[in-house]
C-alpha cells in the first residue's frame, strides 16, 4: 500500500468514526433527555400528575406532526397558487389556478399525467395477480417457505437497488457483440435478431420499468393475500369440496369472495405506492425518452428546475389522488372488522 493510500484510508476511517460518534451522541442525548424529563416529572404527585404525564407523552408527537406534516401541507397548497420559483423568493404573486391549468394543458405534463395513470392501471393489477397466484400455489405446497422467500425477497430491496439489478437485464449491446443484458440474450436465443435498445424505445421502456415495480410489489401482495387465504376456515373449504367444488370453481366461488376486502386493500395500497415512487424512473432514465411520471416530474420541478409553484401543484394533485384511495381502504377495513 502506498503512502497516499494509507492517508486516504485513515481519513476515511476518521470520518466514519466521527459520523458514528455523532450518532451515539445524538441517540444517547435523546434518551438521556427523556430519562431526565421522566425523572423530574415523576416527582409530581396528586392532581397534577396526570396532566403532566399527558403533556410529556403527547406534546412531542403533536408538535412534530404539526411542524412536519400539517403546516407544510397547508404551505404547499398555498405555494401551488403562486408563481414562486425558488426558495425564499421575494414578491411572490398569487396566480390562482394557473399552475393546475398548466399541468393539465401543457402537452409534456399532460403526457406525464397520462403515463402515471397507465402505471396506476397496470402495476397494482398485475402485482396483485401475481401475488395471488403465488399465494394460491404455495398454499398447496408441502414446503412453501423457499418459494415464498424467493418471491418476497425483493420487498427488502430499495427501488434504486432494484434499478441497478434490472440494468443487467435491460442492458443493450449491438447484436453482433456478446450480450450483457439478459433480456436481449433471451430474445436473441428465441430468434429476434435485432432487439431494440430497451430503455430508449418508447413506449416499451415504460412497461419494462413497470416490471421492476411489479417485481418488488408482488411479494407484498403474496404475503398479505396468503395470510387472508389461510384465515378462511378449513370447514368452509372442506364443505365446499364435499359439494364438489374444486380448482377454479373453488377459487372463484369461495376463496375470492372471502378475501375480497383484503384484495381491495392490497390493490389500493399498491396503487398508493405506485403513485409516489419516483426512484425507478429517476434512476433508469431520469424521465427522458418519454418515460416521465408525476412523482419524478414533481421532484425535478421542486429541486432541479426551480418551479416550486408548479411542483407544488403536482404534489397537491398527488394528494387529491391518494385521498379517496385511503378513505376507501379505511372503509373496507372497518366493514371487515364489523363482520368478524
Amino acid at each position, binding site marked *: 500500500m502506498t503512502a497516499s493510500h494509507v492517508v486516504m484510508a485513515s481519513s*476515511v476511517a476518521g470520518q466514519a468514526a466521527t459520523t458514528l460518534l455523532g450518532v451515539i451522541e445524538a441517540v444517547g442525548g435523546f434518551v438521556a433527555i427523556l430519562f431526565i424529563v421522566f425523572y423530574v416529572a*415523576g416527582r409530581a404527585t396528586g392532581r397534577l400528575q*396526570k396532566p403532566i404525564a399527558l403533556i410529556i407523552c403527547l406534546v412531542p408527537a*403533536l408538535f412534530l406532526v404539526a411542524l412536519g*406534516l400539517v403546516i407544510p401541507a397547508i404551505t404547499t397548497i398555498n405555494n401551488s397558487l403562486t408563481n414562486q420559483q425558488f426558495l425564499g423568493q421575494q414578491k411572490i404573486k398569487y396566480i390562482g389556478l394557473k399552475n393546475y391549468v398548466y399541468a393539465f394543458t401543457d402537452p409534456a405534463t399532460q403526457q406525464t399525467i397520462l403515463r402515471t395513470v397507465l402505471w396506476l392501471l397496470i402495476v397494482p393489477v398485475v402485482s396483485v395477480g401475481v401475488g395471488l397466484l403465488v399465494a394460491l400455489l404455495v398454499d398447496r405446497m408441502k414446503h412453501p417457505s423457499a418459494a415464498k422467500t424467493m418471491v418476497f*425477497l425483493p420487498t427488502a430491496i*430499495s427501488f*434504486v437497488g432494484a434499478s441497478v439489478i434490472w440494468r443487467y437485464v435491460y442492458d443493450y449491446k449491438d447484436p453482433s457483440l456478446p450480450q450483457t443484458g439478459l433480456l436481449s440474450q433471451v430474445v436473441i436465443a428465441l430468434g429476434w435478431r435485432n432487439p431494440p435498445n430497451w430503455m430508449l424505445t418508447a413506449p416499451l421502456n415504460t412497461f419494462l420499468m413497470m416490471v421492476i415495480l411489479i417485481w418488488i410489489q408482488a411479494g407484498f401482495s403474496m404475503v398479505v393475500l396468503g395470510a387472508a387465504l389461510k384465515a378462511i376456515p378449513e370447514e368452509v373449504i372442506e364443505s365446499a369440496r364435499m359439494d364438489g367444488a374444486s380448482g377454479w370453481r373453488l377459487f372463484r366461488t369461495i376463496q375470492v369472495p372471502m378475501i375480497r376486502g383484503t384484495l381491495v386493500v392490497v390493490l389500493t395500497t399498491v396503487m398508493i405506492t405506485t403513485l409516489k415512487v419516483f426512484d425507478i424512473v429517476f434512476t433508469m432514465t431520469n424521465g427522458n425518452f418519454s418515460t416521465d411520471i408525476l412523482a419524478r416530474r414533481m421532484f425535478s420541478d421542486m429541486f432541479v428546475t426551480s418551479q*416550486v409553484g408548479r411542483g407544488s401543484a403536482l404534489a397537491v394533485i398527488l394528494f387529491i389522488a391518494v385521498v379517496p384511495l385511503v378513505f376507501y381502504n379505511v372503509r373496507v377495513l372497518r366493514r371487515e372488522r364489523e363482520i368478524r
Partner: protein
Amino acid sequence: MTTVTTSTDVAKPLHGAEAVKAVRRRFSTPMASFFAVLIGLLWTIPTLGLFINSFRSKQDAATTGWWMFFVHPTFSLDGYNQVLTGSGGMLIPLVNSLAITIPATIIPIFIASMAGYAIAWLPFRGSDVIFFGIFALQVVPLQMALVPLQQYYVHGLQIAGVTILPSPHINGTLAQIWLSHTMFSLPLAVFLLHNFIAQLPNSVMEAARIDGASHLRIFRSIVLPLSMPAIASFSIFQFLWVWNDLLVAKVFGGSDPTMQPVTARMQSLVGNYGAHAELLAPAGFVTIVVPLIVFLALQRYFVRGLLAGSVKG
C-alpha cells in the same frame, strides 16, 4: 389443474384435524409446487445476476453476460476492493446509511409509543379526535412536506412574514434527515403502537396503579417492555424504509457526497453514464446487502408488521 378435480375418495367424510390434513394433502399437487418454484426462480434471477457480476473481473463483466460465469468462471474481488476503499467509494455512504437509519428508527419508537400510551391509557376530552387526526395524516404524501420543511430548516417557520419558530440550525447535518424521517413516520407509528398498547390487559395497569406507580413509571416499566413485539415489527419496517429511501436523503442531504447514504450514492453512480460502469455491480450489492440480511433474519417480525399495517388496519 386437472389433477385436483379427480375426487373419488372425498366421498368418505372426515372430521377435525384429520380432515384438515386430508384437504392439505389433496391440495399439495406437484404441479402447484412446480409453478411456485418456477416463479420463485424467475423472481431470483435478476438479483442472482447482479450478485454474480459483482464477483467477476471488470473485463469480463463489461464484455460478456453474467451467465457466462457458468461457462468460464472467473473470480475477482477487485470491484469490492475499489468500492469499499478510497474516499469516493461506498464505505462512507455505508456508514452514513447506518448513521441515518439508527436514530431515525429509535427516536420515533419512543415518541410514538409515548403518544400511543397517552391516547390509550390517559383518557382526556378530545383524545379520540387527536388519535383520528394523527391517523388521518397518513393521507398526506411526504412529497407535500418537502419544500416547506426545507424552508423551515433554513429560515425557520414564518407565517405572514413573522418568525414563529427560529431555524433549528441543523442545516447541512444528518440531524435534518433524522428529524424529517421521524416526522414522516409518526402517523403510522402512533397508529400501530397505539393499537397494540390499547390492548394490553387492564388488570396489569390497575395492579401497578394500586401499588402507587405513577403514569410515567407505568409507561417506562410496564408498557414499554410489554410492547416489544409491536416495537420490533415497527422497527424493522422503519429500518428498511429509511435505509431504502432516496427521496428524503436527496432533498435534505443535498448534493454533499460526504452525507450521502448508499441509495443516493448509488443513484449518482448510475447517473454518471458509463463513468464507473464496472463498479455498478459490487456497489449495487453493497447497497442491498444490509436490508437483505435484516429481512432474512427477522422476516417473521416484518411480516407481522406488514399484516398489522394492512390487514388488521
